[in-house]
């Protein structure tokens, strides 16, 4: 998901976010659903969106922040165009997560939790993507699973994501 940086797009995003909020207006229990879809829409959860969501569902901004910061899935800062999630589940750990991380860090020059200066990649460590049979594995953009990783394959995989 590309984070929208241009001003002209913001009105459109606001409108779409209003639509998402409308389904749960006045219902604090829909918070996680709304946050998930808002993040899908915008790419992360900027302050203006959180304010809109808090007002729409009838929650305080503090309550919304409380939930956003609790769950690993939500991000308060913009992310790169492609999110690389390296699996650190037990099977992957036993079979070489350390090696995958080392190779990735050398290839794109950032630590887990960071985004490359050109906004191409965000690197993160996740806990078990459920592809243990293919360990060690990583998942890119939440959908492409790359398994049975060997260090020499990593550059070629990264090339597929411009």
């Amino acid at each position, binding site marked *: 998901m590309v984070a929208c940086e241009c001003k002209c797009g913001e009105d459109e995003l606001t409108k779409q976010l209003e639509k998402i909020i409308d389904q749960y207006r006045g219902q604090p229990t829909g918070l996680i659903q709304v946050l998930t879809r808002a993040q899908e829409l915008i790419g992360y959860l900027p302050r203006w969106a959180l304010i809109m969501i808090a007002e729409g569902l009838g929650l305080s901004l503090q309550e919304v922040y409380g939930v956003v910061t609790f*769950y690993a899935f939500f991000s308060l800062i913009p992310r790169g165009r492609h999110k690389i999630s390296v699996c650190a589940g037990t*099977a992957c750990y*036993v079979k070489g997560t350390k090696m995958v991380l080392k190779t990735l860090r050398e290839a794109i020059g950032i630590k887990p939790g960071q985004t490359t200066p050109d906004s191409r990649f965000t690197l993160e460590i996740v806990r078990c993507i459920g592809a243990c049979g*293919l*360990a060690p594995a990583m998942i890119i953009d939440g959908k492409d699973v790359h*398994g049975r990783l060997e260090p020499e394959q990593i550059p070629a995989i990264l090339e597929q994501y411009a």
Partner: protein
Amino acid sequence: MQEVLKVREGVPSATCKAHIMVCGGQGCISSKCGEVVDALKESLNKNGLTEQVRIILTGCMGPCDMGPVAIVYPDATFYRRLRPKDAEAIVEEHIMKGAPVQRLLYRAPGAKEPTPCIHDIDLFKKQQKIVLRNTIYIDPLSIEEYIGRDGYAALAKVLTQMTPAQVIEEVKKSGLRGRGGAGFSTGMKWGFTAAAPGTPKYVVCNGDEGDPGAFMDRSVLEGDPHSVIEGMAICGYAIGAEQGYVYVRAEYPLAIQRLSYAIEKAREYGLLGKNIFGTSFNFDIEIRIGAGAFVCGEETALLASIEGKRGEPRPRPPFPAQSGVWGKPTVINNVETWANIAPIILKGADWYASIGTEKSKGTKVFALAGRINNTGIVEVPMGITLREIVYEIGGGIPRKKQFKAVQTGGPSGGCIPAEHLDTPIDYDSLGALGAIMGSGGMIVMDEDTCMVDIAKFFLDFVVDESCGKCSPCRIGTKRMYEILDRITNGQGREGDIELLSELATTIKNTALCGLGQTAPNPVLSTIRYFRDEYEEHIKERKCRAGVCELK
């Protein structure tokens, strides 16, 4: 529909030459099974067979490391490690001429001849499938195929022939225990909720599966979503609930997609919604998406998360059976538990209770991974030994390495060493060994694994995932992690093992929820069975597995 499914039971059909079932589990999708499907379609088209051969993408078939895998019916030929270029051979040699493609067949280790039929392969023969009864047979997107395999017949039976009390009695009698970890009697849980005062009541499916090393729930949700829906509806009738929630992790988009589709179809067919089967019973299900917090697998935390709050646990009692979602009586069971319900109702409690051990009935699905030849999902009767799972089903340890331990139950579980390989597996025997069944993750470790490092790995996980509400878990596990970090860095001190044990016991006794109470288990079990490795690290600054960089 029966006609169609017969082909998959080995009965040749006049109108249909063959069915090619391609595994569509996450493992095979990652191994690019989509390209294989495209190539098969193209090849069928070229030979004018599109009308006579069906290609079906199924749920996970189990043997993930052999992927992409496929089964050709009616002869049930099992193919593995398929590439798009193999499609032509399968269509032209096997389907048209009846000669299975030898080079793509499974060959048992050391065997000269391949084993073509899936039912003859050891890996499958040793298994007994109840939960996964449909995953190699049906298209998960087809409610008709589920119905064709007796789907929703159990729901029809309870609604038309049984009273709610009889349903609860049947589940109790079956001896089914919760497959999520703690192993509490499912029937008793339902009974408590049915008897609890307060309406409305709710049914919840725990599909959080945050355990590292576990992926059986996802394979059920992706491969046979209707079995979960049916189980929940039966419970709804038994306890008097009209609303159910399925809580699934956001990390499982395919499971969410297939389950949403299944719920929609069930509604269309009148199997969810108002007046199901023309009775006065109403029941519907909504999906709630989890946002990545391990603690949400703990039932009280999960309930808070369903309500849109931070997923923090609260003390029990009151148990969810008295006070669950929105403070109302709630049954909460794991995905695998739900998938067991329909067969119990249809075939009877006595049939179910005849499988397994005295106190652990039925089968258990395990996710087998780590340093083992056959990784993937297996379903075995309770009471099978670890040795049978590791060596007969799992095919042993690769590269002639020495087996060291099996880790079960994830961060709440423990490591079982080689001397206990012949223990029959059930809830109680694993507990006695200092491990737990958990949801069923099973990671095999060989001599290249350092047990102190593994203990540190799990503590790191718990420190990261602790919700922070209670201090034994928030502070205690952090202190344990620091000690383990020191030991693995070569800075271990005399007395560290005792200090770890003391901290572990205190945390076990005082933490608020299951996450904290079980967090020290990996440390305690590695100290119990691999104390010499800890001592080597501390006294000799030596790591025999060569994993730790000791300064």
